[in-house]
């Protein structure tokens, strides 16, 4: 568990009484809020659905980056810990790719058998 608490020793905590950290927290908050509001606004724009999906997924990953990086302070931990946490999720990406192909195949089978468009 000591890994989770290594942040104590970080440089940006030492001399300014945490002021730099607080500034970073609020900056992250504004970024997250701005992205969320932006997402809701573009949900009703006339951008084609395929592109919209891509935008949403990339913005979600950006938000996840800020939450995991700053709020969960992975950015300030040792690099190895970051890799240990993030690399297993490559398997999830593979899983997503497989299961989406599977879903499309199932839809295709329904089209053929049940005649649904």
């Amino acid at each position, binding site marked *: 568990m000591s890994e*989770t608490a290594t942040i104590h020793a970080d440089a940006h*905590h030492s001399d300014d009484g945490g002021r730099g950290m607080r500034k970073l927290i609020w900056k*992250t908050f504004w970024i997250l809020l701005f992205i969320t509001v932006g997402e809701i606004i573009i949900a*009703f724009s006339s951008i084609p659905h395929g592109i919209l999906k891509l935008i*949403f997924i990339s913005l979600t990953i950006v938000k996840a980056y800020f939450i995991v990086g700053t*709020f969960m302070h992975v950015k300030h931990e040792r690099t190895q810990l970051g890799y240990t946490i993030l690399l297993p999720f490559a398997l999830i990406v593979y*899983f*997503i790719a497989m*299961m989406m192909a599977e879903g499309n195949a199932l*839809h295709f089978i329904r089209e053929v058998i049940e005649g649904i468009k």
Partner: protein
Amino acid sequence: MWIFLMSDAFTFSSLLIAYGTLRHKFGDSWPIPGDVFHHFPFYHGEIKLAYVGLMTFILIMSSVTMVLAVEAGHRNSKKEVMLWMFFTIIGGLMFLGSQAWEWYHFITGSEEGKMIGGKLIHGANLSINEYGNPLFGDFFFFITGFHGFHVFSGVCINIIVFILVARGFNDRKKDYELVEKVGLYWHFVDLVWVFVFTFFYLI
């Protein structure tokens, strides 16, 4: 803590992947989330997605107060830790209340309802859904319910840690690692909601 969070993240990933797969399979009868979730308190028209946007804001906000509590813990400022943790607990409770409200409106459905199989159906439960495929309702209840239960546990753990801090547990230990750990869990819950929000409500 990180090992637990990762296993939990895998569970949520699997649930969302299952949702995606079946959504691809039944793409023709899947409801458009914007048409389902358009209620807003004290307002009788339709504002699509506004309420869930507000819920997201509440959860992100409570995540901010949590990280401020952790930051105050690094300075051993007991008073500030308690203040920020208090706001976090309030934020968590507000989110739970919002979710209950959202469920209520999904379950009771629209006034006019929809004819399915010769019967007039209002709202949704695990086997019927006036908005489209019943599987949407199943996934909605299961995934948001599972997430809501995480928020509920988070609020309980937050309250316990709040009491411990108030009784001087961390002063005796000379560090606020406990606050740090519950903070990690709380941010994780926020992170999961960011993904649920995208895949359930936006896409």
